[in-house]
């Protein structure tokens, strides 16, 4: 069997902004010849960077684990390393994640995003003396954490959420709330009540109006809306 080596070109429209040089952001039109082995958008971007090394974007693991290369691809947030280049209509429009301050080109300042993540205490709180070996969970208890712990904090979901755009300083956002439920659902954690208190606010949790943009864009196919619903259910069960 022979592999046909068809010359492929990827045409891009890329958001460019270097605050040291540019007065305002602009869209750059640029093309790049792809190798037959280039399969993902990130491959094309790396190739593009060898052509124009002023282009800035984050990337690290290039396999959907580190969450660095999240960007807005043809209007939808996603990871460049998980997006098939051939699946994208051209020209491929790339912008930084919406709603966060742009540092340069496709790189955004994620301070606000991580501030919200830290506000939900993303760690198990257990003040009882630790047993000789680890704190055990039954398989059923561990099962509860599936679909929650896999979040890679790429910020695709939170930056696709209009509630997070309007109130990034007050609304925890889908990523933070998914993490919040991950620790509420953890049987080893002893701060469920405090965690629920922390979210019982018109802004922190209840800015979510269930439009499910977060579910639509999550590159790990997680469901923050479901986790948010479960937090609300727990609040209901302790209130009535």
């Amino acid at each position, binding site marked *: 069997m022979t592999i046909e080596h068809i010359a492929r070109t990827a045409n891009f429209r890329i958001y460019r902004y270097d605050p040291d040089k540019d007065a305002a952001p602009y869209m750059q039109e640029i093309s790049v010849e792809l190798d037959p082995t280039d399969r993902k958008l990130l491959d094309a971007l790396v190739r593009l960077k060898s052509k124009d090394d002023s282009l800035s974007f984050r990337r690290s693991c290039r396999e959907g684990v580190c969450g660095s290369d999240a960007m807005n691809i043809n209007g939808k947030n996603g990871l460049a390393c998980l997006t098939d280049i051939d699946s994208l209509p051209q020209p491929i429009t790339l912008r930084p994640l919406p709603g966060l301050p742009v540092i340069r080109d496709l790189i955004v300042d994620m301070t606000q995003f991580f501030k919200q993540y830290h506000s939900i205490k993303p760690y198990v709180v257990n003040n009882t003396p630790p047993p000789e070996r680890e704190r055990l969970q039954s398989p059923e208890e561990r099962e509860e954490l599936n679909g929650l712990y896999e979040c890679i904090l790429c910020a695709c979901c939170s930056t696709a959420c209009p*509630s997070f755009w309007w109130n990034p300083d007050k609304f925890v956002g889908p990523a933070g709330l998914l993490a919040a439920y991950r620790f509420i659902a953890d049987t080893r954690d002893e701060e469920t009540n405090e965690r629920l208190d922390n979210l019982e606010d018109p802004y922190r949790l209840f800015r979510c109006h269930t439009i499910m943009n977060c579910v639509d864009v999550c590159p790990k196919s997680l469901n923050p809306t479901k986790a948010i619903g479960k937090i609300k259910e727990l609040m209901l069960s302790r209130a009535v």
Partner: protein
Amino acid sequence: MVKRLVVGAHYGFGDWLLQRLTAVVMALYTVMFAIRLSMLTSYDVFAWYDLFSSGMMRFATFLFFMSLFYHAWVGVRDIFMDYVKPISVRLTLHAVVAFLLLGYAGWAAQILWRL
């Protein structure tokens, strides 16, 4: 003075729950009202009077309006909280809407028990 960000007004859950409960009340009333309308033999002002002459109908309609106004209060307040950032303007708008809705509730009662 350093501007501090304050969150933690513990009314989020209550309002969220009441907004859903009031939606249920409105949905039930809408079905009930549609059935009552379809059962009318004539569609004139006398039939309308007759429909609202029972205390039960008046009570149900008033409950519907109260649900509508509370539901609207939470929704409109959410919009102000999202889009109106200066606290003084937001408080003024909250007050205007709150008193307007309270006025509407009184007006609804007056209309219902005048029929």
